[in-house]
């Protein structure tokens, strides 16, 4: 059964269609790439899946339930987490706090317990801290846990954002250009990490990426988007040799 199935998704802004009759299917434990030239509507698709935008038409079936139009926090609770193209960390907070916020949806103590500081608060905080550190160490960020997030170098900010997304315990992880701004070495590490995450946590991963080496290297299937529509779908090799894709990317041969 498909984990996520998108049927005829449409979204337009001020009369301009950003996404038109978009269809997609993600199975469990699959690693999918979504590519396409700038302005093709990839990020809009992400925003629709995660509830940041409300779809005009179409369904987004996640675990057999239409989540189209739900608010983002509800979608997160259903098990979809994401990162952002232009990194959106909680900039003035520490690395550790960033991850802790992601753990808030399963907060183990009540509001009164927090205010009056019952024992359950201390136990709960210890648990949150432990888990947050676990995620950080997975991304080699634990040594910087008390650093202010905006002071991290770019690559680490990217990693922190992924760590934060994972801390919400998603079944589907959506990464918007995770390698943007990374150097080749960092990108390689990232590829390795993405594979490992998928295997270790049994995740399905959907990613947008411009770095083709990354997309081609890790994705099992790729969707290609142009003008808000899917123009190709298939295995990396198929995509690489698809004439429409090459045209969309490099422009027509002149």
């Amino acid at each position: 059964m498909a984990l996520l199935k998108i049927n005829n998704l449409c979204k337009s802004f001020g009369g301009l269609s950003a996404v038109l009759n978009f269809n997609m299917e993600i199975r469990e434990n699959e690693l999918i790439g979504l590519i396409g030239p700038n302005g093709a509507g990839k990020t809009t698709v992400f925003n629709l899946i995660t509830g940041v935008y409300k779809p005009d038409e179409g369904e987004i079936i996640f675990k057999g339930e239409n989540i189209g139009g739900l608010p983002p926090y509800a979608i997160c609770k259903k098990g979809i987490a994401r990162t952002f193209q232009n990194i959106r960390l909680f900039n003035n907070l520490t690395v550790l706090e960033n991850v802790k916020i992601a753990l808030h949806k399963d907060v183990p103590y009540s509001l009164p317990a927090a205010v009056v500081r019952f024992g359950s608060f201390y136990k709960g905080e210890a648990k949150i801290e432990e888990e947050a550190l676990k995620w950080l160490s997975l991304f080699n960020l634990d040594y910087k846990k008390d650093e202010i997030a905006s002071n991290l170098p770019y690559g680490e900010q990217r990693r922190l954002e992924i760590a934060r997304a994972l801390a919400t315990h998603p079944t589907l992880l959506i990464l918007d250009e995770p390698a943007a701004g990374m150097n080749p070495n960092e990108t390689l590490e990232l590829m390795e990490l993405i594979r490992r995450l998928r295997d270790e946590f049994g995740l399905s991963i959907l990613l947008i990426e411009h770095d083709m080496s990354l997309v081609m290297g890790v994705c099992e299937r790729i969707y290609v988007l142009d003008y808000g529509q899917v123009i190709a779908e298939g295995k990396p090799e198929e995509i690489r040799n698809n004439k429409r894709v090459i045209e969309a990317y490099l422009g027509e041969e002149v």
Partner: protein
Amino acid sequence: MKMLETRWGKFIIEVVALAVIFTLVQYFITAGIFNQYHQITLTSMCINIILAVSLNLINGFTGQLSLGHAGFMAVGAYVSVVLTKFMGMPFIVGIIAGCLGAALAGFVIGVPTLRLKGDYLAIATLGFGEIIRVILQNIDYVGGPAGVVGIPKLTSWGWLFAGVVVTIFVIQNLINSSYGRAIISVREDEIASEVMGVNTTNYKVLAFVVGAFFAGFAGVLYAHYFYIIKPETFNFLKSFDVLVMVVLGGLGSTTGAVIAAVFVTLLTAVLQAFPAVRMIIYALILILIMIYRPQGLMGNKELSVKILGRIWSGKDGSFEDK
């Protein structure tokens, strides 16, 4: 086991420190070292601290620009006065009802308006604050524009101290919990926060309600000390005063709010003697502080000995020119 020890250890130190402060001031009052003027200034100071710390929860930690704090203060003051003066209930009932009344007002106002952002939210909250004032002005039961006179003076140093401690305690505990982090995440990045599973609307309303609750508390204490309340006391200029304290202290810093509240209260008291230039000096101080320290005295940091040293040596990151 060790953690438990330090936790209890800290707790005991805190309790002892608070007890010492309380007794000391109480002694100063009974011994007459603090005269009536000092006491009134102290009262204003405590009320301002409660107001600033609670508004800081909304404006500083949640990042929602609210300009209606005086309105909540008014609700707290009036509700409690109706109970204590008109119905003869004990002070504690007045306090609880005043706080809850203000919190309810916060809820009623917060739910619709918190969808608005930035300046639109600011003007909507300012508007609600003014609406509360106008409504009070038209209720003859509570004296209309003349307000209520002869409110029993029930606010004692004990209540003021309790008010300040409880406000700081509750808001600090809230902020330093997972709920508080959720609240702060709304300020940092609302969309990222939503996507991380935080129901931002709920937390904005929560912060608004808690902030209003304590503003109500401040209102109760105000009414039962200053003998008289009038709707005019709670106009938008009062909200501005509180906002000034919060921003001077540094948005998102409780210690900053406390320091600024103390500073502004003392400044006000001192300036009474300079009627001709008092407001000019006040205005200039505001402008200068904002120009030279736009992030407020504390930025969003809390005061600790370490930070003090860093601010002075100029290593505080926020001091750097970009």
